[in-house]
C-alpha cells in the first residue's frame, strides 16, 4: 500500500507543479490583466477596472464572434464527416501497415503550414492549377473565384485541422469490440442501425475529443483568414491579435480571451448537463 501512495503522490505532485506554473499562473495573469488598464509606458498597470469587459458589448465584436463561430463550426462538422470514415477504416485495419498509414497522414503536416497554405493558393487561385485544369477540359469558361472568399478559408481550415479530428477518433475506434457489432447483427440490426445505435455512441468520446481539438483552434487561427480569405473580414483570432499587437491593449486582449474561454466552457458544460443521463458523459 505504501508504494501505492508513493506513486500516486509523486504523479500528482509533478502534475500539480507543472499545472500551477504553466497553466494556472498564466491563466491568472490573463484574468488579472483583463481587469487592469494600460498606458503609454506600461503594458499592464493599475487602476483596476471593468471597462475592458464593458467595451466588449459591442455589435462589431459580437458579429466577429458569430462569424468565427459559424465558420469554425462548419469546418469542424466537415472535418468530422470527412475524417470519421477515414479514422474508422484505418483503425479497423488488421494489417501491419496500419501505423505506416497513420504516419503517412501526419508527415505532410510536418511541413510548415504557411508553405502548404501557399500551395493551396497556387491551386485555387484564378490562374491556378485547379482552374487551369477545369478550363482546359472545357468544364468551365471563367475561372472559379474561390480564393479570397469564405470557402477558401474553410478549405484552409479543414486542410490544416483534419489530422486533429482523425487521430482521437482512431484511438477510440480501435477499442471497439467487434463482438458488440456482431451481436447487433445477430439481433437483426441493419448496418445503418448498428452504426447509429452502437458505433456512434461508443466512439462518442473520440468524436468529442476530435471536435474540440478542431473547433477551438479554428476559432482562433489568424493566418488562414489572412492569406486565403484575403483578410477581407476579421475573425476572432485577428481581433485578439490586433488588440495585443496594434492597439497594444493587452488588458483588452486578455478580456477577449477570458470571455471566449468562458463562452466555450459554458457550451461544454451545457453539453455535459444535457447528456448527463448518458453513461458516456463520464468523459468529462
Amino acid at each position, binding site marked *: 500500500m505504501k*508504494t*501505492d501512495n508513493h*506513486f*500516486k503522490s509523486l*504523479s*500528482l505532485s*509533478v*502534475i*500539480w507543479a*507543472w*499545472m500551477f506554473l504553466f*497553466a*494556472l*499562473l*498564466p*491563466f491568472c*495573469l*490573463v484574468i488579472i490583466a483583463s481587469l487592469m488598464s494600460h498606458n503609454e509606458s506600461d503594458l499592464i498597470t493599475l487602476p483596476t477596472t471593468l471597462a475592458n469587459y464593458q467595451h466588449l458589448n459591442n455589435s462589431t465584436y459580437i458579429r466577429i464572434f458569430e462569424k468565427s463561430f459559424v465558420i469554425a463550426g462548419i469546418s469542424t462538422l466537415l472535418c468530422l464527416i470527412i475524417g470519421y470514415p477515414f479514422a474508422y*477504416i*484505418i483503425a479497423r485495419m488488421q494489417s501491419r501497415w496500419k*501505423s*505506416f498509414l*497513420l*504516419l*503517412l*497522414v501526419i508527415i505532410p503536416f*510536418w*511541413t*510548415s503550414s*504557411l*508553405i*502548404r497554405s*501557399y*500551395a*493551396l*493558393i*497556387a*491551386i485555387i487561385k484564378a490562374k491556378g492549377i485547379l482552374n487551369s485544369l477545369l478550363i482546359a477540359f472545357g468544364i468551365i469558361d471563367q475561372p472559379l473565384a474561390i480564393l479570397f472568399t469564405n470557402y477558401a478559408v474553410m478549405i484552409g481550415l479543414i*486542410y490544416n485541422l*483534419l*489530422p486533429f479530428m482523425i487521430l*482521437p477518433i482512431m*484511438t*477510440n475506434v*480501435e477499442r471497439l469490440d467487434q463482438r458488440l457489432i456482431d451481436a447487433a447483427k445477430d439481433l437483426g440490426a441493419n448496418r445503418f442501425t448498428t452504426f447509429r445505435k452502437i458505433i456512434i455512441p*461508443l466512439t462518442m*468520446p473520440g468524436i468529442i*475529443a476530435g471536435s474540440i481539438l478542431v473547433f*477551438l483552434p479554428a476559432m482562433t487561427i489568424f493566418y488562414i483568414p489572412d492569406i486565403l480569405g484575403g483578410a477581407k473580414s476579421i475573425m476572432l*483570432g485577428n481581433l*485578439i*491579435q490586433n488588440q495585443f*499587437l496594434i492597439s497594444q491593449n*493587452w488588458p483588452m*486582449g486578455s478580456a477577449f480571451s477570458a470571455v471566449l*474561454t468562458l463562452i*466555450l*466552457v459554458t457550451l461544454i458544460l451545457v453539453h455535459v448537463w444535457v447528456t448527463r443521463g448518458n453513461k458516456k458523459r*463520464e*468523459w468529462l
Partner: protein
Amino acid sequence: MNTTTLRNSTYLSLIYLFFYIPIIVLIVYSFNNTTFSLVWHGFTWRWYVDLFSDGDLWIATWHSFFLGIASATGATFLGMLTAVSLYRYRFPGRNFLNGLIFILILSPEIVTGAALLILFTFFHLPLGFMSLLLAHICFCIPFVIVTTYSRLISFDKNIFEAAKDLGASDFIIMIRIILPLLSPALFASWLLSFTLSLDDVIISYFVSGPEFQILPLQIYSMVRSGIKPEINALCSVLFCVTVTMVVLAQLALRKKT
C-alpha cells in the same frame, strides 16, 4: 466483402490525395523558374543550389526538429501522467484541473505566448532553448491529455480491480497494464505534439531567444517580402527525407516479423 474493401480503399485514397496534392504542388514549385509568382514559369535547379549553400536555414531546421522531439516526448510523458491520474484517482481539485486543461486549449496562442513571456521575465529565465521547450510542452500537453483520456475511458475498469486484488501496486498497474493498452494513443499524441511544435509561430516568437533559431520563425519572416521557392526546396527535401525514413522503418519492421 470485395465491394467494401474497394469502397474503403477508394475513400482512403481520395483523402490521402487531398492531403498530398498540395505537397506535390509544393515540391513541383520548388523547381519553378520565378522568384515570386505562383504560376509555373519553367524548370530550374537554382533554388536547390541556393538552399544547399545556406547554412543558417539548416541549423534552424535541425533546431526545430530537436525542439520538436524534446517537446513531444516531454508533453507525452506529462500528459499521460495527467490523463491517467485524472482517470484513476479522485483527488481534491480534480474538476478544477479538468477546467485548466480546457482553458489551455482554448487560449489563443498570442495570449499564451504573452503570458508565458511575462512569466519567464518574472523568473529571470533567459530566453532560448529552455524557454522554448517549456512553452512547447505547455501547449502540447492538453492535446496529449485529450487524446489519451478519450482512449482511457473505453477501458474495462474490472481489469484494474482484478490487478489490485492480485496485489499489484499502482506503479506496476501503470507499467504493465495501462501503458501497453495506451500505446496507440501515446503514439498518436506524440505525433500530434511533434506536429504542433514544428509549426508553432506565435508562441515561439514571444519566448525565443537570439541564440536558438527555429525554422517557422524564419519562414514567417519571409512573408512580408514574398516567399521564395528556396523554402519550397527546403520543405521538399525535408519531406522526402521523412518519407524515406518512415518507409525504411516500415520495411525494417516487416523483416522482423
